[in-house]
Structures are given as C-alpha cells and as structure tokens.
C-alpha cells in the first residue's frame, strides 16, 4: 500500500455566504493518479484549488479545516505560498500558455524560484521538462516562437511542461483534456501514465472512461460532499453507494 501524500480533514469552503464544500475527508496516495468525478458545480475544482491555495486569489473564498501534505498543514497562515506552489503544480482546463516564447514559458517557473542560475542550466531544465511532457521533439527547433502559436493539445502539454519545470511533488489537473480532441487527449493520458512514476497526480475529469483509464483511485463528489472514495476498479465495477452507481452509469449529472 502506498503512502498518503495529501490528507484533507473536515474541509469546508465558502464562497461568501454559499458553502461549496462540506466536511471533505479525502486521502490522496503518493505516486498515484487520483481522479475526482461528479456533476458540474459539485466542488471538484474548489477542492483541488485548496491543495495549492489557489483559492487565496478569490476574495470571497474562505477555507476552514485541514489539508496536509506530508503532514504539513497547508492552510497555515504562516506557510509560504510560493514554496507550496513550487511543490504543487497545476494544469488548467483551458491551456493558458503565457504570451511568451516556448522557452520562456518553461523557464518562467525556474527563474522565479531561483533555479537554473546559468543559461546552460536553464536550457537543461527546459529540455528535460519538454521531454517529460512529450513535446520536445515537436518544438525543439522553434523554442523562440510564441507558445500561443501551438495547437491546443501542444499548448496543454506545454502547460504540463511548465508545471513540471519547477520539479513539483504533486500535479493538480483540472479537466486538462476538456478542450482537446481525442488524439491530443490520448497523448495527454499516456503522458499522465508516465508522469505518475515521479509525481502524485490529482485529476478532475468529466469523462468516466478517462477516469478508468488513468486513475488508481477515484473520488465521487456530489453537492460539495464526498459520496464515495475507493479504488477506481471498485468504484466503477461495484460502488457501494446508489448515487455513485447512478452517476457512473449516466443516469444523472
């Protein structure tokens, strides 16, 4: 049994008056892919944004309860968000490369965290990240072209490479394939499979098939509550909860 990397305990999140998460308890295992599924608006994004404190950006958002990474409390006011986000990278639903060159998109993070002092060190980081994101072969001859000029699937892999560039321990992915066609999706899924050897991955997805293909563990959210968590095989073959059953067979949501 693998180690628990992230542990949330009685996590409650509010947007102003509205409560978005109710007592969420969820463990995420190290070097595994955990999929979060559930109908739209059930709080999946809200949950993963708690892990790297991205909810700090939203003024009205208030987080209560605990989230620990390797036993260290994330919600601690004293915690340095910059180094937290160095450890926990994130990939978004819509590819969002910066309006910079491909090279600068990748070297952005390392520069911010003071990694790669010399040009050759940076070059190395850029190449390694792009290779890991399975993009190197496609872009190695045009590193100084703008990242926004790539195709959607390439852009998303660029964003994954960007997340990898600072050598995080956890990668959060919020519907990373929802803007992509099946071929680009297959490439990303393959990549996720590869990445889980090195990183702990949490992926939000609306595609049951994708959850089955990429994840080892699945959590089902409904109306801000975790209804059921377990091995992906079990959740999709014989879930304990009636609601989970209904959702994965497409009867609601």
């Amino acid at each position, binding site marked *: 049994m693998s180690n628990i990397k992230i542990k949330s305990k009685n996590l409650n999140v509010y947007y102003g008056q509205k409560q978005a998460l109710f007592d969420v308890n969820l463990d995420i295992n190290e070097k595994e892919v955990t999929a979060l599924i559930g109908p739209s608006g059930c709080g999946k994004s809200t949950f993963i944004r708690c892990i*790297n404190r*991205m909810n700090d*950006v939203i003024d009205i958002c208030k987080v209560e309860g605990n989230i620990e990474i390797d036993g260290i409390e994330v919600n601690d006011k004293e915690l340095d*968000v*910059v*180094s*937290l*986000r*160095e450890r926990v*990278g*994130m990939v*978004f639903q*819509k590819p*969002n*490369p*910066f*309006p*910079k060159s491909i090279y600068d998109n990748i070297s*952005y*993070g390392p520069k*911010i*965290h003071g990694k790669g002092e010399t040009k050759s060190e940076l070059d190395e980081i850029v190449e390694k990240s792009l290779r890991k994101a399975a993009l190197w072969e496609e872009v190695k001859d045009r590193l100084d072209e703008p990242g*926004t000029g790539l195709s959607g699937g390439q852009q998303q892999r660029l*964003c994954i490479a*960007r*997340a990898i*560039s*600072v050598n995080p321990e956890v990668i959060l992915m919020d519907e990373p394939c929802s803007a992509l066609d099946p071929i680009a999706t297959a490439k990303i899924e393959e990549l996720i499979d590869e990445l889980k050897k090195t990183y702990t991955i949490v992926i939000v997805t609306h595609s049951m098939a994708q959850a089955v293909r990429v994840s080892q563990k699945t959590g089902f959210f409904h109306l801000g509550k975790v209804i059921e968590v377990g091995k992906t095989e079990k959740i999709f073959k014989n879930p304990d909860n009636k609601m989970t059953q209904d959702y994965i067979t497409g009867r609601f949501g």
Partner: protein
Amino acid sequence: MNLVLIFLITIFSLSLFFYGRSKTKSISIQNNIKLNALPKFYGYYLVLWCSIPALIFLLVWSLFEPVIIKSIIIETAANQGAIFNDKNEANLIYEKIKAIHLGTFFGDIDSILKESAISYAKFLNLFTNSKIVLIFGIVIASVIYSLKKIKNNNKARDDVELILKGLLFASSLIAILTTLGIIFSLLFESIKFFSVINIFDYLFGTNWSPQRAFVSDASKITSAELEEIKDAFGFIPLIAGTSFIALIAMLVAVPIGLFSGIYMAEYASVKVRRISKPIIEILAGIPTVVYGFFAALTVGPFFRQAGESLGLTVSSESALAAGLIMGIMIIPYISSLSDDVINSVPQSLRDGSYAIGATKSETIKQVVIPAALPGIIGSVLLAVSRAIGETMIVVMAAGLAANLTINPLDSTTTITTQIVMILVGDQEFDSPKTQSAFALGLTLFIATLILNYIAQRAVKKYREKYD
C-alpha cells in the same frame, strides 16, 4: 413661419399613427384577413410618409428661397436704374432693400430703393404663400398615397425598415461628406500654398517666420518677393517643438498613467475602484484652457523662480511647463485605457502564473503587462496624437518664438500654436502666410491620422488575440 409649419406637420403625422393603427386593425377584423405586419407598423408607415417628404421639401425650399428672391430683386432693381459695379455693391443694395423692408434702415431712401423694397415684400409674400400651399399639397398627396397602400395591406414592416434605413444612411452620409469637405478644403488651400512655396523648402526649412511674408496676393507674387519669403516657412522648428513638448508630456504621463492603470486594474478593491476611477476621469473632462492658464500663470512662473534661485535662466513660457501640464492632462487617457486593456487580460493567465508560485508583482510584470503590451502601446500612441494636436495649453504656456532648441527651459512653439497665431486678427485670405496655416493643418492631420491608425491597429490586434 417655418417652425410653425414643422410643428403642424409633426403633430399631424403623429396623429396619423393612431389612425393607421386602428384603421388597419378594423380592416383585418372586418375582412377577416391576416395583416402583413403588426398594426403599429402601419401607424409608423403613415407617420413617416406624411412627415418626411414635406420636411424635405421645406428644407430644400428654405435653402433656395433667399437665393432666388435675391437674384430677382437685384435684377429688377437694375432694370429700374440702380447702379452697381460689382457683386459687393449689389449685395450692399440688396441688404439695404431688406433693411428698408424690415424698417431698420436709417438713411436716404430714393425711389428705386423704395420700389424695390415694395416688390421685395411682394415676392416674400408670394413665396411664403406658395410654400404653404405646396406643403399642404404634398402632405395631402402623401396621405392619400400611403392610406391607399395600407388599405391594400402592404408590407408595411419592410417599408418602414427601408425608410428608417434610408434615414440612418442619410445621417452617416452627412457625417462623411462634412469630413471629406474639410479634408478637401485643407488639401486645396495647401496646394495653393505649395504652388508658391516649394514643398521641400517647407518640409526641411529650419526657419519659421511667416510674418515676413506680408505679400497680399499669392497669385501675383513677384520673383523678388518670392526670393524674400522662400525660406520663411521652414517646418522643422515647429515639428521639433511639437515633438519636444509631446515628449516631455509623455515622460510625465506614461509612467504615472500606466502605474495608476495597473493599480486600478490589479490592486484596487471594488470600492476604491468605484470611487477613484470617476475622479481620474474628471481630469479628462477639465477644459484644456483651464490647464492652459494653470500652466501659464502658476507652473511657468514657478519654474522661472525655481530656476533663478538655482542660477538658471528660465523663460516664463517654457517647453517644460507646457509639457508638464499637457502630461497631466493626458494621464487619465493612458490610465483609463491601460486599465481597460489590463482588465481584459484573461484571468487564466494570472492563474497560471500564481499556480507556479509567482507573486502578484512578478505576475504583473512578467505576464500581465507583456500580454497587455500591444494595447498599452496603442493607448500611448492615442495619447501622443492628442498631445501633438493639443492647442490651448501650448498657446498659453509654450511661447510663440519658433526656436530650434532642446533646452526644456527655453520657450518653443508648436504647429497648433502657429496656426492660431497666423489666423487671429485680420487676414488676407490669399496671402501665403494665411495659406501656410492650411498646410500646417494638413501636416498635423496626416500625422495624427497615421498615429491613430497604428494605435487602433495595435489595440485591435490585441483584442483579437484574447476575445
């Protein structure tokens, strides 16, 4: 008289709205047919048909009536033995006749004038009466025509749309034609100017002193005179002064405007934004003449005193004072435009940067500003084009002497200032001096046109990227 007519036409055609609406309703009920449009469209149809032809007729008539009456009166006066040698004298006599008619003429009235005044009154009466008759005729004809149409259940909706489209088209046509008219008059006067002064002498001359050119008629200029004024119209000092002041203005406005735009877009809370944005925009609403006397009466003298206490000679009209105040005037343009541009940078880019651990200022500096850059450049260029077109401040604060200088404490002059200087006071319309104002205007126009074009291209490109 015309006002009364317009009023009557309006009232009458508006009342037809209700008639048309109820009439078609009852027709459709009586004959049990489906109307081709909602009843109210038939109402609109009647209104438009009854008002527009009559109003257009009235407009055209009012334009031509005075011209026709005048030529008739002058002609009859001439036949009766009035003597005039040229157009001006004829005009004078006509004005006299009019004044006699109105009872405001105090002078000797001879029999010819008296006769003419009487016939003037007669013609005026005749024209007014026939105008009224014709207008009523037109209104009645169009009422009959349009009533017949709606009784036949015409496609009133399409017709109304067509008429409205025509009206809107006519309005935009007027806007375009006036613009073209202005451009062409600039162009023609400039061509006259350049037929006297070589365009290269103008573009590359370094001496601007149009007061030397008091030749009154450009077409009768002698070669000696031409030699004398040939190098009086050098454009270089003006463009240098203009650019210099614009540069100082930009040095003031770009950093302050940009930083305040960034603050508004990225840091200010909703509450602060709601209060401070309108305040900054008030700056944009202050008439430039107010800035102008502020520059001339407060800032200029302040600089001179400050300069003197440092042992510098500062003229009280200085490029520095004018540029500084102009910069302040431009701050709100840059600030509010760049605020808009920064606001429209998608949140997802910021999220991407935060998610990798960047701080707010790093994100702004390295992601948001580069993303917004084309738009920001566009807003700066728009501000530059305002700066070089600005008149009041420089007239009041920059001075009149066309010095070719790069000392900001000296007085300089700008294109706009010189246009003002040339055109105030009595002018011989045909002298090269006056015509040079048109050439300056044309040059300025072309310069701002190019700047605006580039700026709008930049902003548009930026919008396409993120919309």
